[in-house]
């Protein structure tokens, strides 16, 4: 009995085994979570709560190790919860971690696949790239960042992909411009592009989808709406795909980018803008009394 109890406690203590600062405001955490590690697949995510009073936020799995019983997440500090998380250190514990959630990426032999990513998604597209590569696909990766300081894992991605294109908004490294430019050139080129997968900031996924649409190339995006439970219980994450309302946490998070109602999606993401700003100030200790 006592031994069995200890084992269960171990399963639910989410200890940080490793922390790395990958780029400006981008952190990697390797966390003990044997049950999640044993089930994880490319494209899935976890819900995480940093502290007792904290919000539940979704984060995609960047890596996992079933043998070690660990998962890896890469997080960009953008608001209260992600900043709080970024202040944790090796040995600290995460209050709650639930997963793996959502449907895995569809992995098959498609032919030539272009994988587009930006921001934190440089990390989370890696398992997708590797699984697609293993299925025999020719992988062209396009990675876009605002500036050189935000780029990480260049070598890793170079190894994983057959071809790698890097763009920076300000031209501080490699090609200057947005990811949609090389994407368009590839589509216009002589080679057959069989599928595009875009993960990252909403605007990037939207414009990648708009770029591929005239070419009729199937484009998968990984939607990141606001979530609460991540299990299909609240409907907070609902998105319109074609004519249908779907719950991103259980029906997605990956959907056909050509069918997403982007206007609606972007409006719903802004629901709590005021509170988010306020919450962020509070977490820095600069918040003033909140009204409304």
């Amino acid at each position, binding site marked *: 009995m006592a031994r069995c109890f200890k084992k269960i406690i171990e399963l639910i203590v989410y200890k940080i085994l490793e922390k790395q600062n990958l780029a400006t405001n981008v952190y990697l955490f390797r966390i003990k979570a044997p049950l*999640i590690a044993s089930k994880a697949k490319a494209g899935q995510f976890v819900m995480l709560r940093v502290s007792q009073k904290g919000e539940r936020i979704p984060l995609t799995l960047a890596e996992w190790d079933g043998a070690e019983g660990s998962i890896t997440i890469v997080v960009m500090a953008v608001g209260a919860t992600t900043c709080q998380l970024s202040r944790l250190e090796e040995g600290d514990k995460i209050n709650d971690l639930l997963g793996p959630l959502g449907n895995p990426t569809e992995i098959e032999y498609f032919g030539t696949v272009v994988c587009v990513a930006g921001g934190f998604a440089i990390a989370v597209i890696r398992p997708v790239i590797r699984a697609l590569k293993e299925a025999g696909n020719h992988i062209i990766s396009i990675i876009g960042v605002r500036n050189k300081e935000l780029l990480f894992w260049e070598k890793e991605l170079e190894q994983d992909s057959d071809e790698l294109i890097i763009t920076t908004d300000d031209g501080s490294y490699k090609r200057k411009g947005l990811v949609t430019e090389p994407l368009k050139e590839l589509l216009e080129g002589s080679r057959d592009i069989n599928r595009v997968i875009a993960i990252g900031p909403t605007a990037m996924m939207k414009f990648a989808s708009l770029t591929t649409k005239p070419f009729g190339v199937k484009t998968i995006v990984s939607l990141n709406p606001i979530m609460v439970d991540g299990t299909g219980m609240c409907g907070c994450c609902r998105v319109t795909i074609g004519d249908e309302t779907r719950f991103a946490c259980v029906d997605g998070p990956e959907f056909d980018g050509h069918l997403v109602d982007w206007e609606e999606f972007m409006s719903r993401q802004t629901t709590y803008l005021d509170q988010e700003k306020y919450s962020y100030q509070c977490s820095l200790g600069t918040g003033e009394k909140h009204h409304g």
Partner: protein
Amino acid sequence: MNKPLNKRIDMPLQAVEARNSNFDEVALGYSPEMAKAEASRCLQCKKRPCISGCPVGIDIPGFIKAICDDNLPAAVETIKNDNILPGICGRVCPQETQCENVCVFNKGGNAIAIGRLERFTADWERNNKSEIAPVSKSPATGKRIAVVGSGPAGLTVAADLARMGHSVTVLEALHTTGGVLKYGIPDFRLPSEIIEEEVENIKALGVIFQLNTLVGKTQTIDELLERFDAVFLGTGAGLPIFMNIPGENLVGVYSANEFLTRVNLMQAYKFPEYQTPVKAGRQVAVIGGGNVAMDAARSALRLGAERVCIIYRRTEVEMPARREEVEHAIEEGVEMIFLASPVRFLGDEKRNLKSVECIRMELGEPDSSGRRRPLPVEGSQFIIDIDVAIVALGTTPNPLISQTSPGLKTSHKGTLIYDEATSRTTKPRVWAGGDIVTGSATVISAMGAARRAAADIDKFLKTDEGKAGQNWLKADV
């Protein structure tokens, strides 16, 4: 003996003006004197009709007599023989349609306040722990049971089986226990401490709780069956129903589940101390007429809304909510708009909700549920300005469990097919009870099903029956 009173004793409430702006409990409970006076009204009927109205069969006259005799430890023990969650049931059972409905005094409208007495007893226990002997437990059997979901069904099965000497692990998807009790029912009706205390009592029986585990994703039922002798599914009906009308995805339209989860589970009413936000809304419309709608409306009021209305397509008589909740909601200023139904939500250029268009309804012939069917009145559309809408039209079981478990059959409504007497599903060694088999129902009916399941699981584990799956519910029932 004093002449029995013929009128039931009111329970003190928090004043309306005060309670509209806090999440503290509205009903304050009986004092010992009130409880004794109310208890002494009971006739101790020979035929004990009230017991048949309680889905877990509490010895109602028995515990009421103990209150009369000033023997509260005995009252506690009597209740706990059949109900491990009395502080919860005393507060949220729809008594008027259950035990109190069949009390001999009900005809005159003065049924014994069984729920309030049960609550009084449970609250007394919480404050006088040392006077209660620990619940007895049978010797360990070495059998292991996995209970999926920690709502009232799961908690009841876990407690019963633990008392029978089995070793029980409860697996729960969320970061805390209690199911709807915790994420749905607001603190002003059922304070979190009450749930936590009753869960502590179950932990004291040796039940292990494994949180943050979504069965179907983190672990499958087939994997659980490898490590456990039996599996009980009490995963509820958590999937919110939407109306599928235009504008339902505008910013400001919530499902009741989302709104209540933010407010209760995530404690958004204490934002920013608790970090989850909720849009409070100035003018709020809640769609629906059940307990869920009342809870959402009253929560919105407490978050500071200027106007909260409930839009219900039938009339007050057909409202499925507990009587007391409707009364409290009206007292607090919730406006009731009967015989109306939304046809679309309208938004501004930024897609923020700004109004709802409704149509008037009239009642036609009774439908299959026996209630008169509401029919739209041609050309009667009208618009209400709102900035938050909360859709409270019910829930169905989350398909995750059935999708990931071969052999588990569901009805066209998505509920699991099961045998009512034994709570067996169509999958060998898997039992189920509560909202997952009935669709959204009540706390006490979930507990009733759970008790039948526990009895059958115990019988099954103690005999050789079903070792090879014989006598199991056939998949084609």
